């Protein structure tokens, strides 16, 4: 997890486009300036970043389904639950599955587990658009390679 680059996923460990599911691993760094402010003496992974990690994991699933033809932009967060404190250094397993594929939008359900226990979950809506800039698409492919995104699964 590279918080300074907003890269909240370390590795895609499973991508099943037929089942429309994805699983990712992410390790929260032990130190970050974020934890100096959130909170002094009681460092916690901010809930918004946990939601973002679910969004990024969902986004990779959507990008896989659209074979890098569409970018997924987070549009709505529904019923987000932050069930327990998540601390620096902890290892996250983030999963997502498609709930609905509409015309120009997709809805996922995502969850984060630590040590086999769900610590956060949410339903997320994404707008899907063609990549607005070729550099974004190229950049996403670079990130995909860095996180072991299985390009072969996209055909």
């Amino acid at each position: 997890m590279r918080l300074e680059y907003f890269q909240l996923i370390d590795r895609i460990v499973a991508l099943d486009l037929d089942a429309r599911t994805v699983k990712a691993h992410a390790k929260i760094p032990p130190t970050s300036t974020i934890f100096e402010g959130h909170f002094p003496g009681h460092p916690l992974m901010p809930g918004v970043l946990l939601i973002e990690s679910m969004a990024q994991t969902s986004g990779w699933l959507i990008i896989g389904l659209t074979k890098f033809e569409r970018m997924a932009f987070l549009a709505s967060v529904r019923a987000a639950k932050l069930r327990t404190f998540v601390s620096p250094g902890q290892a996250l397993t983030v999963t997502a599955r498609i709930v609905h594929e509409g015309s120009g939008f997709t809805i996922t359900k995502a969850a984060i587990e630590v040590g086999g226990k769900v610590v956060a979950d949410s339903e997320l809506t994404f707008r899907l658009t063609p990549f607005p800039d070729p550099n974004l698409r190229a950049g996403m492919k670079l990130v995909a390679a860095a996180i072991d995104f299985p390009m072969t699964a996209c055909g």
Partner: protein
Amino acid sequence: MSSTFDTVANIIAETCDIPRDTIKPESHAINDLGIDSLDFLDIAFAIDKAFGIKLPLEQWTQEVNDGKATTEQYFVLDNLCARIDGLVAAKGA
């Protein structure tokens, strides 16, 4: 069995917190009811689920943007319901 309009109006009322009795067949979802594009995604999700269809929102938006159609053709509820009925019929054909 409720009509397509009743189902759609109930979805809009619940999704957007709009009083049900203000939603009429002649209402324009955007201009009269003030529904924005994000709320319309939630409505489309609920309509897709309720009728087992996929509203072609991208195609409609493209046609409006290209000047080939007006928003009234898709977003006045009477017209929207007619298109839903058409999609349901096509699915069953």
